[in-house]
């Protein structure tokens, strides 16, 4: 193979957001690996600091910069690459590539686009051109009209007839799309869609048709394969990212399967794709009629899923094909002897289920539809559908035990729940079956194929059989086995057979486990080998099933296996950062000479790439399944501290089951997790903490508040990321909120803590061994305490902390590490006001900020932690954050635009979906680069300010003066305008949204007269004034940058007033850390 590419630029996808998440870390990492194998130098632009691809040793040069044409051009000037890869960074990279092409930048620097030509990409992105291209080869697309105005949309709908679907071109994850049944609905949707895209499509609705996708690969010699097809459980009408998906398709005959397959090949041949491409179809459930819905000429969420579903490394192969390889020149990555020019044969099914976090948002609509809202996904593997779906529903991690046996999924109006799908629809199907609905009835309400429904009914029927039995001894062995084959967990069986009262079911669960082991009902381990056992596989890619009698793996049992528990589905509060931690823990384990074993089930991750470990179990992280794997592996130990809260929560249970947990002892993990014991420990150490109390009655709470005063922070104990946690400022809010909080958890009382205002929040990340801190990193929040640490903007090393504060934090950390005898990673959150320091919490595990501080410090905290946990030799010299010459800023990415009606305000509960981290020679450089990386734009003309309470008015005064000096036109709502003009700032007052007859703040946003909105909420309550909500929501819906925190707004304004794009420092990561 000859190509003349020496250096290639790879565009990443930036921060994780709804519709564009971790899958691109996986595909980008694969592409970089493929280039490296060819000896090609790689330059990566991606500000996402938490990713694996932005780690050392993967790309030759990394730029933590926004993936926008300006910055890409700066990097091109600096690095002078001769090729560029656009297909591995999602829609962000693709859009950026198209802009670079249109601006002539690619031509100017003689950059060769590797893989699919840019002309092809443009053909697939512009829906009208796309439909025309397919028409040329007699391939059907939905009847549709492309329009560029609301009036034209209404006219088109008149011709097509309702219902219709509206889609925005050039967006990701169906942003701005939706169904409309009448002109009024269309008007609203079209306005919204047109704010994202100059062109929208008004199309015939194919609601109820089957939705089927193919992942297609083509090389430059016109060889084509389809690597995987997938069928949506939810029929058309629900975005594929919102659907439960099964691979391969289950209800298609050979004729249908191959009709769509050959169409896919015809399409990509015609379009000239070189590399990977995704084709989505609608298929009539009553004939072989079809429509092509969409073609994505790039790696996608589906392609990542297909890679994991089949074991075929699509991104890696696509990258190689871009260099001119023929498919058959490449080897099958699994067998190593057969060719990559083949179509994987599966001998299992996989089920993908989206993970939503809609409860985290105030006001958001729960209905799911043609636009994506889910924040993550899981993939479950089984040898029948029942097993896969039940595994998957447990993996989602929202307290569900499978398809049945969930106490917390009850619906008042089942018919509505079935016909107007929400994130809970599958559980409504369960309840409907329970209530005796027939499959036909459910099908009529949902249009879900009866095959899927009959499979679900199998589960439901089995549940009734189990319920008839009251003790394990009388449970029929065949029924016992069959329920395991159908994916029932020990918990479900315990609940149906033993029928314990509410509460901890630990002993019942273990009873079931012991009973079935005694009967020899144990799962077997099977390989994913791409060829359904036709060829011997070298793979370590595994799953467990009860449909089998033989293990594919021969175990060594040499005490050399170390199991790392991964992080599960991406969700708000736990995302790619824990994947980075997991991957680095695996490499740490390997470096210490042990066999690295991974358990995780998130298809978007790098940790579930079978290349990164010695054995990968793509399976549940439940107590039951982890024990099953431990029974098979008999490992040296298990690492629970790098995958976030899911593995952390297993620590004590594993310990009680006599499993060796590596690192800090589970008792001590528990001491830190348990508020009471942790607080006692702090008291003993003389370390201060905000006053708090665990209370179970309203009177007791009132008494406590009389003592500490409002505002107070209220949360149910033992919950990750403060689900349902809230700050209340008065008695009304208190009563309102308590109703919600108690609904969340009856078992645990409510914890009320004093809420300290105007305090700095500080993160401490460290690694210790035997209670001695080996390395630490202290970062400060830009925002005052009250913004969740996952939403806050972090500065590292800290720029505005007293030296004394840092010294005392280190002392406290040392005492806590010693007291908990920590070995491995840990993280603390602290408050500082003046030099008064209070500890909020301590997690004896790696935290969200580990990749960020590791990268800024150029020292891998997680590898060090693995070394400590495995008793390796610890280097004597450690870097210190005081020696850093550059500054890192981590900023958060929000996806409010996807979450229709959600109030885009920040609070103690986390709302961000992703993050970036940028490095610069000074504070403002790093702040501005990171803010631009999460989608802010430097305003060009005017700014609208509602500055909220007096404190934030004062906070913003200096920065508004700066804006004025810079010549910005400033608008303010009444109070703000008065305050600022009293302070000599020139400002034009505008009316609140509900004041009629005048020019309102909303008008300014709608007409795009302002290109930056600052709206500071009036108080900390969630019941925001209607007016403020309207302004914030309009800014989000019309894509005008919005900041809702005064400190952050101020930092941003300072940054863009002190710096311009042109003065920002463009340098590689290597430059900053060498």
């Amino acid at each position, binding site marked *: 193979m000859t190509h003349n590419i020496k250096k290639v630029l790879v565009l990443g996808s930036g921060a994780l957001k709804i519709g564009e998440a971790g899958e691109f870390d996986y595909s980008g990492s694969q592409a970089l690996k493929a280039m490296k194998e060819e000896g090609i130098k790689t330059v990566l632009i991606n500000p996402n600091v938490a990713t694996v691809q932005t780690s050392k040793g993967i790309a030759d040069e990394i730029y933590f910069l926004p993936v926008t044409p300006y910055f890409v051009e700066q990097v091109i000037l600096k690095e002078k690459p001769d090729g560029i890869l656009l297909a591995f960074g999602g829609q962000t990279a693709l859009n950026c590539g198209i802009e670079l092409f249109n601006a002539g930048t690619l031509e100017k620097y003689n950059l060769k686009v590797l893989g699919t030509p840019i002309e092809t990409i443009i053909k697939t992105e512009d829906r009208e051109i796309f439909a025309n291209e397919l028409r040329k080869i007699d391939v059907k697309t939905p009847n549709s009209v492309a329009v560029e105005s609301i009036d034209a949309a209404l006219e088109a709908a008149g011709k097509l007839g309702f219902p219709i679907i509206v889609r925005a071109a050039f967006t990701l994850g169906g942003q701005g799309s939706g169904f409309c049944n009448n002109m009024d609905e269309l008007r609203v949707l079209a306005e919204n869609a047109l704010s994202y895209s100059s062109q929208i499509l008004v199309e015939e609705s194919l609601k109820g048709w089957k939705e089927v996708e193919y992942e297609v690969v083509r090389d430059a010699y016109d060889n084509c394969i389809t690597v995987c097809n997938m069928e949506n459980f939810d029929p058309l009408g629900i975005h594929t990212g919102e659907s439960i998906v099964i691979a391969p398709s289950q209800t298609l005959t050979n004729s249908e399967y191959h009709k769509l397959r050959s169409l896919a090949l015809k399409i990509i041949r015609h379009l000239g794709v070189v590399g990977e491409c995704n084709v989505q179809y609608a298929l009539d459930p009553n004939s072989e009629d079809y429509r092509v819905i969409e073609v994505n000429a790039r790696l996608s969420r589906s392609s990542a899923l297909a890679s994991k579903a089949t074991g075929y490394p699509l991104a890696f192969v696509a990258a190689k094909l871009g260099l001119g390889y023929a498919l058959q020149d490449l080897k099958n990555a699994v067998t190593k002897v057969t060719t990559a020019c083949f*179509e994987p044969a599966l001998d299992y099914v996989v089920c993908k289920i989206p993970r939503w976090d809609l409860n985290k948002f105030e006001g958001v609509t729960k209905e799911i539809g043609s636009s994506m809202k889910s924040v993550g996904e899981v993939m479950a593997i089984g040898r029948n559908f029942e097993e896969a779906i039940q595994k998957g529903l447990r993996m989602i991690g929202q307290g569900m035990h499978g398809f049945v046996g969930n106490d917390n999924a009850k619906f008042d109006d089942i018919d509505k729940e079935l016909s107007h799908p929400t994130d809970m629809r599958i559980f409504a199907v369960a309840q409907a079956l329970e209530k005796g609905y027939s499959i036909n009835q459910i099908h009529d309400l949902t249009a879900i194929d009866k095959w899927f429904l009959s499979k679900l009914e199998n589960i439901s029927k089995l549940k009734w059989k189990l319920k008839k039995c009251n003790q394990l001894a009388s449970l029929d062995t065949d029924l016992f086995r069959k329920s395991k084959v159908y994916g029932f967990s020990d918990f479900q069986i315990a609940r149906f057979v033993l029928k314990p009262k509410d509460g901890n079911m630990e002993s019942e669960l273990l009873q079931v486990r012991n009973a079935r082991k005694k009967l020899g009902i144990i799962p077997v381990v099977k390989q994913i080998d791409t060829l359904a056992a*036709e060829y011997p596989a070298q793979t370590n890619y595994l799953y467990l099933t009860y449909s089998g009698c033989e293990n594919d793996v021969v175990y060594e049992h040499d005490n050399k296996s170390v199991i790392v528990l991964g992080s599960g589905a991406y969700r708000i509060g736990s995302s790619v950062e824990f994947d980075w931690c997991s991957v680095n823990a695996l490499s740490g384990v390997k470096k210490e000479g042990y066999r690295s074993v991974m358990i995780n089930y998130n298809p978007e991750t790098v940790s579930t790439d079978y290349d990164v470990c010695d054995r990968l179990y793509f399976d549940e992280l439940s107590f039951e399944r982890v024990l099953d794997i431990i029974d098979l592996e008999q490992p040296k130990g298990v690492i629970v501290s790098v995958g976030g809260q899911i593995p952390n929560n297993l620590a004590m249970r594993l310990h009680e089951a006599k499993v060796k947990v590596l690192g800090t002892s589970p008792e001590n993990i528990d001491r830190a997790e348990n508020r009471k014991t942790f607080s006692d420990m702090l008291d003993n150490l003389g370390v201060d903490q905000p006053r708090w109390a665990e209370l179970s009655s309203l009177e007791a709470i009132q008494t406590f508040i009389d003592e500490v005063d409002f505002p107070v922070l209220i949360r149910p104990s033992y919950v990750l990321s403060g689900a349902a946690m809230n700050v209340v400022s008065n008695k009304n809010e208190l009563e309102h909120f308590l109703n919600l909080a108690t609904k969340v958890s009856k078992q645990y009382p409510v914890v009320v803590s004093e809420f300290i205002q105007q305090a700095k929040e500080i993160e401490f990340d460290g690694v210790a061994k035997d209670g001695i801190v080996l390395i630490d990193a202290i970062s400060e929040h830009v925002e005052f305490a009250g913004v969740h640490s996952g939403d806050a903007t972090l500065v590292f090393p800290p720029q505005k902390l007293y030296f004394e504060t840092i010294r005392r934090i280190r002392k406290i950390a040392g005492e806590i590490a010693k007291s908990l005898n920590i070995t491995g990673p840990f993280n603390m959150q602290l408050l500082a006001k003046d030099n008064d320091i209070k500890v909020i919490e301590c997690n004896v595990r790696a935290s969200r900020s580990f990749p960020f501080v590791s990268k800024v410090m150029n020292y891998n905290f997680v590898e060090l932690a693995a070394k400590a946990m495995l008793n390796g030799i610890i280097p004597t010299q450690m870097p210190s954050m005081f020696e850093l010459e550059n500054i890192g800023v981590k900023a958060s990415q929000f996806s409010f635009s996807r979450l229709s009606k959600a109030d885009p305000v920040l609070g103690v509960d986390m709302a961000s979906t992703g993050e970036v981290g940028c490095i610069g020679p000074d504070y403002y450089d790093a702040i501005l680069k990171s803010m631009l990386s999460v989608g802010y734009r430097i305003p060009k003309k005017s700014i609208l300010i509602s500055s909220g309470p007096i404190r934030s008015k004062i906070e913003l005064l200096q920065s508004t003066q700066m804006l004025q000096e810079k010549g910005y036109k400033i608008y303010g709502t009444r109070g703000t305008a008065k305050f600022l003009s009293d302070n000599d700032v020139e400002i034009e007052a505008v009316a609140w949204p509900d004041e009629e007859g005048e020019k309102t703040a909303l008008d300014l946003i709608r007409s795009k007269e302002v290109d930056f909105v600052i709206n500071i909420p009036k108080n900390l309550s969630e019941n925001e004034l209607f007016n403020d909500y309207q302004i914030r929501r309009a800014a989000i819906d019309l894509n005008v940058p919005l900041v809702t925190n005064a400190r952050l707004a101020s930092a941003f304004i300072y940054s863009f007033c002190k710096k311009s794009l042109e003065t920002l420092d463009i340098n590689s990561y290597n430059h900053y850390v060498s």
Partner: protein
Amino acid sequence: MLKQAKLILEDGSEYHGTSFGYEGSVAGEMVFNTAMTGYPESLSDPSYRGQILVTTFPLIGNYGVPGDRKEDDLFRYFESDKIQLSGFVVSDYTDDFSHWNASLSLSDWMKEHQIPGIYGIDTRALTKKLRTNGSMKAKIVVNDQDVAFIDPNSRHLVSEVSTKEVKTYGNGKHKVLLLDCGCKNNIIRCLLKRDTTVIRVPYDYDFTNDDYDGLFLSNGPGDPKLNVKAIDHVKTALSQDKPIMGICLGTQLMALAAGADTYKLKYGHRSHNQPALLKGTKRCFITSQNHGYAIDTDTLPSDWEVLFENANDNTCEGIKHKTKPFFSSQFHPEASSGPTDTEFLFDDFIGMMEEYKG
């Protein structure tokens, strides 16, 4: 009521499962197929004659079985007039099918044709055994009615599946003489689509003096060398200049007639994902395959060459004559079931007939 059944292999290993389809015991040669779609097509494929098939894809029965509508005097949705294989082994069978075109469940169809099946088997473990030991004799035992192991390859299977009489299909401009050794219906459909008249003749029919434009050698079951008469007739055809195309068994007959040798593969190729490389090019095609025997390319006479080669194991996937219009593929360009990417070979055959006729 669910009935237990056993699958027993010649090495004595037993797998316990549940009976579906016909409740009777049967013996045959155990082979595996890794295709993920197309059980009605596979079950009615005459090349499976005498075999017990295990399908590695675990979920079977989902879309039921279509009705017996006929088109051009051929069953529209099947590859022959009946279920041809002897037994069917699957992991997870469902009776609750769902498809607009289904008429009955797979189990009911198998009952109709008196074909037993067994499910609840670790089909992956079974497949690994076949991969290691090669195809094995096996039996499905229902109701404890034991049967003896048999080796179907010792029988002349072709004679069991070939047409008994000469039949003509279509009325197109090219007259194709189809030697039916167990022909799949889709070969005839693919030919009829291309303006042909297809004259289907029995496997031992002497066509050497008949009037036709092109000769087509069909697929079929078993050891190719048992077809002595057919090989003889093909030998005569090879001495002439009329175009000849062969598929699967047909390719082996062509090779044997040309003087080359064939051999039995350890466990054969039965799947939808076999890569066939067009020799001397960068083109590689995904093909549907179902064969247990292959051509030994070392024995090919000098006026013949390899046309296609398997990109996985380098076995022969087709041959062609260096100067005359004779070619063949080991894979199934007619697909059904499987990928349709090589259907253009039928066009090549039509082109050859056109050229031959001037």
